[in-house]
């Protein structure tokens, strides 16, 4: 089980990471960041196996993955 770190003020809410996660673990948040955009967040209780697809997809280097 891996852990996802999302940099709130780097994420621009483009949602590119959302569909690539086979666990559907990423969702849009309600909070508003510096840009006035909704960054994504890790869905509560969701799974992550550290496949890196979300990070690979992210144009803003907003996702880091640890385990």
């Amino acid at each position: 089980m891996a852990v996802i770190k999302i940099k709130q003020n780097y994420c621009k809410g483009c949602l590119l990471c959302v569909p690539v996660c086979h666990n559907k673990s990423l969702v849009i948040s309600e909070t508003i960041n510096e840009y006035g955009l909704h960054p994504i967040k890790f869905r509560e209780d969701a799974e992550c196996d550290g496949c890196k697809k979300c990070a690979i997809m992210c144009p803003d280097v907003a996702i880091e993955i640890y385990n």
Partner: protein
Amino acid sequence: MTEKIILAGFGGQGMMLLGKLLAQAAMADGKYVTYFPSYGTEVRGGTAVYYLIISNEEIFSPLIEEADTLIVMNQPSYQKYKDMLKPDGLLVLNSSMIKLNNLSDVKTYQVPATEIASKLGNVLVSNIVMLGAYLAIKKLFSASLILDQLQAMLKGKKGNLLTINKQALDSGMQVIKTIS
């Protein structure tokens, strides 16, 4: 009468249109008007700011050194431009996106524009909500003059676009009535 307005927001939040509607109305009303977008840089993203001046007299510099009114859509815009408002100026802000730290002198109106627009079914009309609020406060023009401009601009577009814009304008005006 000279009204100097700074409009600022994230690119895509429709500040350009907000200002243009006001400028068109001013023109239709026989006023002098200058409307100047200040592209900060040749670079994407970030804050877009527009300088609008409406006056009964010839306008020289379209730049604004001290604004009568500041209409801001998000936190970074607010941060960046708040000091350009004159001491007793008017501040209209999108409270859905701006957390206020204590403001002293200025008259402040907090309009939850994004929320209202969301409820109307289209976040993109949050700018029109702000416009409605501004109109209700400063009463420079009648709502119908603005609606004329909107109508002209949306000509050829889908009919329900006009409807939702009308609703947005209205909601913005209502907010002010409620607040005050």
